[in-house]
């Protein structure tokens, strides 16, 4: 059984349409993960001993266990505590929490490299802590961590393919279904790989554009 290019082409429309599900899930997750990541970072900077202790255990757990297991935990275990989520919501929650942890850890490193001066100046001008975060720290932080945020975006996009294992009808699952129906499992996989490559290229391209604009404004 050789490789059949026409089967790849035949699978592309359906797989491509289903991959748009991955795209919109990834967009939602990116926004949620960034918001959560910023939130975690601000909370950690308040330095409540107990809160930070709990956070550091949570962060270590998320960084030390596979995202697949975290997806299973959100999908199979949350219903036991009364939180019955449909597969898509559970998956979005799992990936967003996972990425937010990687984002806040990256912010931690970037914060240590920020300059004291602007914050001291803002404090001298009696800006409130909320204003200092919004006007002084976050603009610098986001600009500096943009390359990392873009690569986290590609990780998020790739992780959405894992939601096929909890029955979300996204690109990878549709490719497997086409493979099962046509008895040619290999070619639809090439089609879905192409879709992910294209989506990732778009994501990286947008990142480069934003980076250029940010650099222009900073100059």
């Amino acid at each position, binding site marked *: *059984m050789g490789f059949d290019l026409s089967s790849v082409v035949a699978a592309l429309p359906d797989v491509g349409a289903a991959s748009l599900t991955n795209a919109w899930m990834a967009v939602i997750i990116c926004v949620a993960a960034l918001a959560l990541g910023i939130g975690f970072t601000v909370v950690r*900077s308040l*330095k409540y001993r107990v809160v930070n202790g709990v956070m550091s255990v949570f962060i270590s757990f998320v960084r*030390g266990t596979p995202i697949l*297991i975290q997806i299973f*935990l959100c999908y199979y275990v949350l219903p036991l505590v009364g939180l019955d989520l449909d597969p898509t919501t559970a998956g979005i929650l799992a990936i967003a929490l996972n990425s937010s942890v990687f984002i806040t850890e990256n912010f931690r490193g970037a914060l240590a490299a920020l300059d004291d001066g602007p914050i001291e100046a803002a404090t001298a001008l009696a800006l409130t802590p909320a204003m200092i975060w919004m006007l002084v720290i976050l603009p610098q932080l986001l600009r500096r961590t943009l390359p990392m945020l873009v690569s986290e975006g590609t990780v998020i996009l790739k992780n959405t393919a894992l939601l096929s294992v909890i029955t979300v009808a996204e690109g990878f699952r549709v490719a497997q279904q086409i493979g099962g129906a046509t008895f040619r499992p290999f070619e639809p996989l090439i089609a879905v790989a192409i879709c992910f490559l294209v989506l990732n290229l778009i994501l990286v391209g947008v990142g480069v554009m934003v980076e250029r604009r940010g650099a222009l404004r900073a100059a």
Partner: protein
Amino acid sequence: MRLDPGVITDSWPLFVEGTLVTIQLSVLSFLLGLALAVPVAALSMSRHGVFRGSAMVYLAILRGIPFIALVFIVHYGTAASGARTPAFWSGVIALTLFASAYYSEVIRSTISALPPGQWDSGRVVGMSRLQTLRYIIVPQSLGSMIPPGVNVTIMMIKESSVISAITVGELTYQGLVVQGNTFAPFEVFITIALIYWGITLGVSRLGDRVERRIGRLQKSGRPTGGIAARYLTLTASKPVQ
């Protein structure tokens, strides 16, 4: 919600077996991935555009498609080409390819982070490019390769859970088997999560020790003034002035 420890005590041999297979997968792919990463890194730093281009395509594909797709492509791809690869080896091949892409990026970025004067100084004393690499560049960059290398290793160990999808009896697969038999998702998934957590924590400790051995534990961070430290540090242990 009630915890039933019986689920774990009854099926512990499965968890042990799964853990061993996960470790086998990880160790094999670590060694093979690192071995493959060296030529890929060499290509990506080559002076010839064709070599650099082919390395770029290799990296873009391996890092651009989801690992679960890579696993199935390798598994079905080797089957379609006539060779009947056991699922375990499909998993090893996929994980090796995946690891090689990320390890080669670690090698490339740490080497190119060295000041270019290091290469020039090698030439000045009459060394070839290879000699410069061997005696000047590698000894200096080895230490700084460890922390990102450990991160890639941990990422690779975690990704190995995806290989359960092609029925390799590693930890996640055994967990799913036990979950199917007992319908006790909480006990099962927490147990395998704790085992993975233990493995990755162990690897990261090991990485710290190797790094100390090589003798270059650079700690980043500089003294921050009291006011700015309120925003720029996230550890609660330090007293706030």
